[in-house]
């Protein structure tokens, strides 16, 4: 705990130093100070997190606070430590990467302030995870929103970025309001009350079933917004695309996961009945499928990745839902498998998506565009970034021998266990869940092949892409560390699973966790090693077999003599078959076709497609628009007519006197 306090202190202090230096017009020094502080703080914080996962006893700390809301309780248990590990690891890498990424930013915002905000974001996320009381949690939660918002709108001179930031802010605010209500609902109404988690747990026991469901709904909305659960995910792709890439990495890798952390904590408080597992499972399946179906339509590199985060959160939710269901139905093994798989996937996804966003950042930084259709051939021009992006793409498609496979493997096992043993419809439902997961996996492969293929392979589709070069070392090193994590996580998934088991055990409770960790991952690690060996062996074989290869020949292209980059298959055409043949119209991007031939001579016409989120398009936008329209009807009250204003006062008096008389008449 002292080291964790040191971590928080270092983050805040370095942020303050950076702001001071920025104010003193020393932006470079400010960035360096903030980055150094972040790295040191993350290193300091990883120690207690690792110790806690290694079995150290939970620690806690109570700080006196003068506000009327009780003292601030902090604590470190395996669940917190589980989320601290990716947070601090990815945080340090993002900070290092971010310094180089933003060093020459030309936008309206100061890189030094952004570096300080990043440290603030890290500090607030750490605080979210270690808070043991609702007040500290909410403060940290909102501080997390604000700091991340400031980072998202780093480039706020662009209209898109502003809109993305605003959508994010709206979503976060609605979520926070729900959380506020959630925590306050749980406060025990008898006695002195109190908003520490312990007291809230007691309060939850006293709630009736209706109130409990309402509380669960509030928690679901509040945390679900952050986690990007469909249909609350709409802010996610916008914000991730708009933010600087290291921030997107941190958001996708960690911030979104903190929504899941909140759900898990809420689960510990509420002790959800098994029936809620169905809801989570359904949400998970919908989220996974919708997320990936939207991901494969996007033109914007970072939006692809963002929608894939929606998908992966859905996958984790499938695990959580299954665990909830299985616990209540006497399937301890399936529950343990599902939860371990879900948690492992959280870690794996943090590494994979972190890597991919950093790679995307490299591309955006060097090629100056997020549009897939303007990329191509980047692997030749930025070999390290490109190779790591391909690795990340394979991992995100959940392919062995990389880490993405391990978590899904356990999830499949858990689902499969239920599918082959549970009687009746539950078994069928679990089996269909397996089918859905398989479909998701196949579509993920499509999505990431499309991304990697269009962006990194083939020929460049724009002059900028042709000129791109490898980004600075400070940007590639963090990527390489993450890529290493992908490989190691793939070859030794058991190690990761053992490391996170204390957190899973805490969530599962002693009855289930007492049976020990479910086996299952060992062969996967071996298989991964076998794949590496087999591929290596055959690669050498091919090297030997290929004796003479003439240099400088073009692609054959069925004999076409002058193939141009424009003839390549585009990102849109890559997914066109699936999108236009198989998806219902409301899931497709809306297209604006030019009207031709209306006049005698053709006029200039534009064809454009818009990939606004279908949920936004169908639900949230109309809802907000009508809401704003309804609400602002009240404006006729203020017409500038003084006499009318006086009537309001009279009406207030009359209404109050009337109420008084009525009261006296009703309750004499």
């Amino acid at each position, binding site marked *: 705990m002292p080291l964790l306090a040191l971590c928080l202190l270092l983050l805040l202090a370095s942020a303050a130093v950076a702001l001071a230096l920025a104010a003193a017009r020393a932006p470079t020094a400010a960035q360096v100070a903030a980055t150094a502080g972040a790295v040191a703080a993350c290193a300091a914080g990883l120690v207690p997190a690792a110790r806690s996962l290694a079995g150290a006893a939970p620690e806690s700390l109570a700080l006196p606070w003068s506000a009327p809301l009780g003292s601030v309780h902090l604590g470190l248990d395996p669940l917190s430590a589980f989320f601290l590990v990716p947070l601090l690891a990815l945080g340090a890498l993002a900070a290092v990467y971010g310094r180089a990424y933003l060093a020459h930013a030309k936008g309206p915002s100061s890189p030094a302030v952004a570096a300080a905000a990043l440290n603030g974001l890290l500090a607030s996320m750490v605080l979210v995870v270690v808070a043991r009381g609702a007040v500290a949690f909410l403060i940290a939660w909102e501080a997390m929103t604000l700091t991340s918002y400031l980072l998202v709108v780093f480039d706020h001179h662009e209209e898109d970025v502003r809109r993305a930031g605003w959508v994010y802010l709206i979503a976060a605010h609605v979520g926070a309001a729900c959380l506020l209500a959630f925590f306050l609902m749980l406060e025990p109404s008898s006695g002195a009350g109190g908003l520490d988690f312990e007291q809230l747990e007691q309060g939850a026991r006293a709630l009736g079933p209706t109130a409990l469901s309402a509380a669960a709904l509030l928690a679901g909305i509040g945390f679900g917004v952050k986690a990007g659960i469909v249909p609350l995910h709409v802010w996610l792709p916008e914000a991730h695309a708009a933010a600087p890439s290291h921030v997107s990495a941190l958001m996708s890798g960690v911030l979104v996961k903190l929504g899941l952390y909140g759900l898990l904590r809420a689960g510990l408080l509420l002790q959800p009945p098994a029936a809620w597992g169905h809801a989570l499972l359904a949400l998970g399946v919908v989220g996974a499928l919708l997320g990936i179906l939207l991901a494969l339509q996007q033109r914007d590199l970072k939006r692809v990745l963002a929608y894939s985060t929606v998908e992966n959160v859905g996958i984790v939710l499938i695990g959580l839902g299954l665990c909830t269901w299985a616990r209540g139905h006497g399937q301890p093994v399936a529950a343990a498998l599902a939860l371990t798989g879900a948690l492992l996937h959280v870690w794996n996804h943090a590494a994979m998506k972190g890597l991919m966003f950093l790679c995307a950042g490299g591309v955006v930084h060097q090629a100056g565009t997020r549009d897939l259709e303007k990329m191509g051939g980047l692997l030749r021009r930025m070999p390290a970034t490109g190779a790591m992006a391909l690795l990340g793409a394979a991992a995100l498609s959940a392919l062995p021998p990389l880490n993405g496979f391990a978590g899904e493997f356990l999830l499949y096992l858990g689902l499969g266990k239920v599918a082959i043993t549970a009687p009746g419809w539950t078994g069928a439902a679990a089996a269909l869940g397996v089918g859905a997961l398989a479909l998701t996996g196949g579509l993920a492969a499509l999505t990431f092949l499309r991304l990697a293929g269009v962006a990194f392979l083939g020929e460049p589709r724009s002059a900028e892409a042709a000129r791109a070069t490898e980004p600075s070392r400070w940007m590639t090193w963090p990527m390489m560390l993450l890529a290493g994590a992908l490989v190691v996580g793939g070859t030794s998934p058991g190690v990761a699973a053992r490391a996170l088991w204390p957190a899973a055990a805490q969530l599962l409770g002693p009855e289930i966790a007492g049976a020990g960790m479910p086996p299952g991952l060992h062969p996967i690690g071996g298989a991964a090693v076998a794949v590496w060996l087999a591929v290596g062996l055959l690669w050498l074989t091919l090297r030997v077999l290929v004796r003479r290869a003439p240099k400088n020949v073009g692609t054959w292209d069925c004999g076409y003599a002058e193939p141009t980059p424009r003839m390549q298959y585009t990102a849109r055409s890559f997914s066109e078959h699936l999108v236009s043949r198989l998806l219902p119209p409301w899931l497709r991007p809306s297209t604006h076709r030019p009207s031709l031939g209306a006049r005698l001579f053709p006029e200039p016409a534009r064809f454009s497609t818009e990939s606004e989120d279908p949920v936004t398009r169908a639900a949230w936008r109309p809802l907000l628009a009508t809401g704003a329209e309804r609400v602002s009807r009240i404006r006729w009250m*203020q*017409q*500038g*007519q*003084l006499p009318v204003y006086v009537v309001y006062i009279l009406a207030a008096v009359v209404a109050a006197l009337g109420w008084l*008389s009525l009261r006296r008449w009703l309750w004499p």
Partner: protein
Amino acid sequence: MSRAVDPLLVVILLLNFALLGSSRLRAVINGTAAQGVALGALLIAVPAELSWHTVLIAAGTVALKGVLIPGMLHRAMRDAAIRREVEPVVGFIPSLLLGGVGTGAALLFARTLPLAPQHVGSLLVSASLSTVLTGFLLLTTRRKAITQVTGYLILENGVFIMGLLLVEAMPFLVELGALLDLLVAIFVMGIIINHINREFSSLDTARLTALKEE
């Protein structure tokens, strides 16, 4: 409490109706002045024993409410060279009806308020509330700044009548109220009317509607 109180209150109530029903600015101002004089008389009639103090306030009230302010309003009307009609937003008959309904409601509500022994049976409370209501009506249904000022004065008169209940127990309160109201009326409204007159060259407050939500 003297026997003259209730008749005086009736006079005031009648003046209320007269104000609601009159169509000429001059008549409105004169009605206001008359009500001011009646208030002065009330002030002398209400207390059981008369003190110099009370007489002084009464004299001041008559001077201000009955002479000075009406005089100022007459002058403002002359200077602004405005039309002499009242220009109501709500017509005279509806105004009168509303006034009648209001007076009835005031009577009903006043019955729910228990009175101290020395005041039992007095019309003071209902007259006060009804006059306040009349003031509100004039304020809200008349368009010119001058009529709005008179409406406000009537409203103040209503409050003043309420204060008469306290004139024995807490004379300080009554004086304070009376004097400060006049301060409002004279200094601030006078100044503002002057400015409005200059800026808009009319005393029609219907023009003062630039600030609004559209």
